[in-house]
Every structure is written in structure tokens, then in C-alpha cells.
């Protein structure tokens, strides 16, 4: 038998993340979630995003958005170099976090119920397991964002091939922004799935948690308007402000989700170390 040296914590995290990625793209339930994801994005790409270049420039659409969101609230949306990506941005900012709540909901719950985590913790530290699974889920979502962006770029090419370069540069910034937006959602799902008995229960926990925290924050803000910064504790609180930004301007909001992620991951790591398996 070959002599082995135990891998470092970083190697374990990478191995676990790679395995998560493989699991997602080979497992039946993972494939069902992916098909649902592809259908939603297929419809979005075929209808609103494809026709974006036509309707986004129409004065009626601008008037409609101003009526809906307020004058000037979406003015930057009309300044995007590639119109399709502007609509993609609008949809992705809300849809990807929603998908995250479902796609990243089974980081630990099923394995904990089955006892499979017991096999793993004999070989890796709990911290490696926690961060490895989190990284794996981020890689999966990174892959999904990349696929949808590539599909959008392909569609843009069918309209105007000269838009390739602006599409690529804009997509890169969109991708970075979306990955940052998803970080705290994925971290929160890692923590919730530690306590849920199933993926579905973890998603339900997330919906309840978001609703309750939003209500509490709204009540506190109503009573104490000086505490309006409190809403920043909730993942996704910056999304509504990000819609009317583009490119590097959107990155100005990244400290909020990054800070949230650090706090949630630190908390999750402590809970993971303390929980009974």
C-alpha cells in the first residue's frame, strides 16, 4: 500500500469543493434543479433578453419603468453598452439569489440526517468540511452564471457581431458582481442547512428568516429612523440599489455582501465545530 501524507486543510477544502461540483452535475436531484434553472433562463433569454435591444430603447418602456420605479431610478439601465446585458442584469440580480436559496440548500442537511458526515469528519476537519462545501456551492453558482452569460453573449452575437468586445467586458463585471452578491446567500444557506433536516426545510427556514428579519428591521426603522443602516445586516439588502448601477459602479456595493459573508461564515464555522454529528 502506498505511503500517504494527510493533505493540508486547504487541499481538503479544494477536494471537497471539486466533489460538490461533480455531485451537482451528475446527481439526479441536482440535474432536476439544473433543468428548472435552464428552463427559467431559457424563457428569459428567448423573450425579454432577446428583445431587449428593441424595447429598451422605446420611449414607452422608459416611461413605464419611470412610472413603476420612480423618475430617474433606472436611468443607468439605458446606458448599458449591450442592451441584452442590461435586462440580464435586472433579472439576474433577483433570480440568482432566489436560486441560491434552493440550489445551496443541501450543503449539510441530508448528509447529517444519513450520518454520512461521520465518514467525512474522520478524514477532514470540520472547518475544512464547512468551507469546502461552501466553496463547492460557489463554484456551482459561478458555473451557472457563466453559462447564462455565455448564452446571452451568443444571442447578442446573432444581432450584432461588433458587440463582442463590449459584451465580454460587461459580462466579466456582471459575473464578478453577481458572484459577490451570492456569497452571503450561500453562506447563510450553509448555516441553515446545518440545522435543517432536509434541503426543503433549509429553504423554508431561509424564507422565514428573511421575512422575519425584514419585518423586524422595518419595525425598528419605523421606531428609530436613525438606525436605517440596520437593513444592511440582511443579505440582498443592497440589491435594489444595485439595479440602477453598471460596471465598476456596481462594485461599490461589494463591501456589504463581503462583510456579511465574513460574519456568516465565521458564525457557521463556530456552529459547525460545536454541533453534534
Amino acid at each position, binding site marked *: 500500500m502506498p505511503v500517504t501524507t494527510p493533505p493540508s486543510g486547504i487541499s481538503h477544502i479544494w477536494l471537497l469543493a471539486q466533489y460538490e461540483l461533480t455531485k451537482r452535475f451528475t446527481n439526479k436531484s441536482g440535474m432536476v434543479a439544473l433543468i428548472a434553472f435552464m428552463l427559467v433562463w431559457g424563457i428569459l433569454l428567448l423573450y425579454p433578453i432577446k428583445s431587449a435591444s428593441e424595447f429598451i430603447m422605446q420611449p414607452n418602456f422608459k416611461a413605464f419603468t419611470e412610472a413603476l420605479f420612480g423618475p430617474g431610478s433606472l436611468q443607468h439601465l439605458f446606458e448599458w453598452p449591450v442592451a441584452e446585458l442590461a435586462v440580464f442584469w435586472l433579472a439576474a440580480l433577483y433570480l440568482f439569489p432566489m436560486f441560491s436559496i434552493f440550489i445551496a440548500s443541501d450543503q449539510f442537511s441530508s448528509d447529517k440526517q444519513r450520518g*454520512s458526515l461521520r465518514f467525512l469528519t474522520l478524514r477532514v*476537519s470540520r472547518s475544512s468540511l464547512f468551507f469546502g462545501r461552501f466553496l463547492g456551492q460557489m463554484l456551482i453558482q459561478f458555473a451557472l452564471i457563466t453559462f447564462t452569460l455565455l448564452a446571452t453573449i451568443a444571442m447578442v452575437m446573432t444581432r450584432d457581431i461588433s458587440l463582442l468586445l463590449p459584451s465580454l467586458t460587461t459580462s466579466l463585471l456582471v459575473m464578478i458582481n453577481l458572484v459577490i452578491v451570492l456569497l452571503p446567500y450561500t453562506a447563510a444557506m450553509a448555516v441553515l442547512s446545518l440545522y435543517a433536516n432536509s434541503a426543503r426545510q433549509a429553504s423554508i427556514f431561509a424564507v422565514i428568516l428573511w421575512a422575519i428579519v425584514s419585518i423586524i428591521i422595518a419595525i425598528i426603522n419605523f421606531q428609530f429612523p436613525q438606525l436605517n443602516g440596520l437593513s444592511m445586516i440582511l443579505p440582498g439588502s443592497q440589491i435594489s440599489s444595485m439595479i440602477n448601477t453598471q460596471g465598476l459602479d456596481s462594485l461599490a456595493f461589494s463591501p456589504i455582501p463581503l462583510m456579511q459573508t465574513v460574519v456568516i461564515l465565521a458564525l457557521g464555522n463556530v456552529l459547525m465545530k460545536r454541533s453534534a454529528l
Partner: protein
Amino acid sequence: MILIQCDNLSKQYPNKLALDNVSLILQPGAPIALVGPNGAGKTTLFSLLCGYIQPTHGSIRILGHAPGSQALQGVLSALPQDAALDPNFTIASQLQFFAQLQGFNKTDAKQEVIRVLELVELSDSAQAKPKSLSHGMSKRVSIAQALIGAPEIVLLDEPTAGLDPANAKKIRQIVKNLAGETTFIISSHNLDELEKLCDHVIYLEKGQLQQSVSIKASQATDFITLTMQTCDMDKLHQQLLSLINVIEVKRSGDEQYVIEYHKQSGFELESQLLAVFNEQQWQYKAILKGRTLEETLFS
């Protein structure tokens, strides 16, 4: 070198004290048995040793390290009770991943999986998914995962529970074959099985350590367990007491006596017994050198 040292170990659950101030020292070597009735704290002790749960009080050192520490990765392994593999992936792919986590590269991990599945005679099921296996086969796969990388310590929680006699025998054979390189700690209700495998027995009851004994005979005295077929048991008792070197005779069942006697190099006592049987025309069922584990623990 001390294999495992537990000092004043307690585990309190919300409604139960599962382990109560247990202190013990285990040395590496022959398999060690962990015995006790249901709810005695055996699985709790195993879970503490594996680092699945934290003790309420006390400390554990395994080869000088705390449970769950990095130094024990790949050194201590276990067959945890009620732990199952992911039903969506093949056995080979999951075991290969475990091997990679222990430091095997991809090629060596594949070889290691073949090796451990051969040990439990399940090479043919490598590409099967866990759900397609019987209970006995699943247990053997879980034992195979515990043997990846030839760990120094393997904890087996009820390894033969629910297995048919043939499979249980296979598991015992695996433990016997590997006992030289690995120290097994086995919890079971099957005393006959443990008696065949283990030298050292830890007996837990109601969360407390009742006994930590060696099955090996003491230096000065020895035992014979005598099971009779047809005879006058009271008369036999008198006859046995009159034999040379006999210290004590204890009835341990309807037809069974346990004889304690001064250690001898030859077979004087056995010869005396056969002479008595011949004289009285009594039939015996078995003359067993030593005592059963049940007798050792509960007499």
C-alpha cells in the same frame, strides 16, 4: 505507548446521563471489547472517541491527541452506528473520495478501494449504489471504508448486528487477520463473538465503567468450564471439590460447573475428571479450558 486515555469522562444529554465519570486506559495490541446492555453508553463513548460529540466533563487523549484533531485523520477510523453512504453515488466513487481525502492520489485511491472491497469480499459491488445492497453488504462496505489506509485504530460499533452467521464470521475473520497491524475496539452484545476476538474487555452499565478486565487467565489460577449431559449434579459437585488442586467449584447453569484450580503444566485435572466420569458412568458435553466471557464478567 497509551492508545486511548479517558479521564473522568461524562456526557450529559438533556434527559439522560449517558456516561458517568468514566476513566480508562487502553493499550494497543489485540482487539478490545466494549460490552454493556442497551443504553449503557457504548455508542456515546464511541461518538466521543470519534469526535462526533463533545464531552460534558473530562478529557480524552487518543495517541496523545484530542479526538477530531488533524493528527488523528487517517489514523483513527470507525464504523459508526446508523451511518449510511450517499445513495446517489456508487460505492467505489465514494470510497475513492474518502481515500483521496486521506492523501491518496487518484490512481492509488482506486487501488486502495479495490483492496478494501476485496477484504470484505465485495469487489463485485464496487459500481453498485448503496441502496441496491442488502443490510449485511452495506455493513461490510462501511467496514471497508473504515479500513482505507490501514488506520492504527478502528472502532467498530456493533459490526455484526443484524448480519447472518456467515457474514458475521467473515467480519470476525477480517478483524482476526488485521489485528496485528490495527487495534480494533469492538462494541457488541454477542459475548461469544467478543470472546473469540478480544483479550481486553470494558464493561459499561448505566454509563459507568463496571469492569475493565483481561480475558487471559491469571498467573496463579486457571479455570475449566464443564458442561454435563446426564449426571447427578449435586454428587458431581462433591466429587469435583475432592479433586487435587481444585480451589473452587461454581455452578453456572443447569448442567454447567466452573472449576477454579491451581495452574498446572500437565493435564492432571482433566485426567481426574475423565476418571470420575468413567467411574460414575456420566456423560459430558464439553470440557472448556477457561471461562466464558459471560462467566468472567457476571460471576
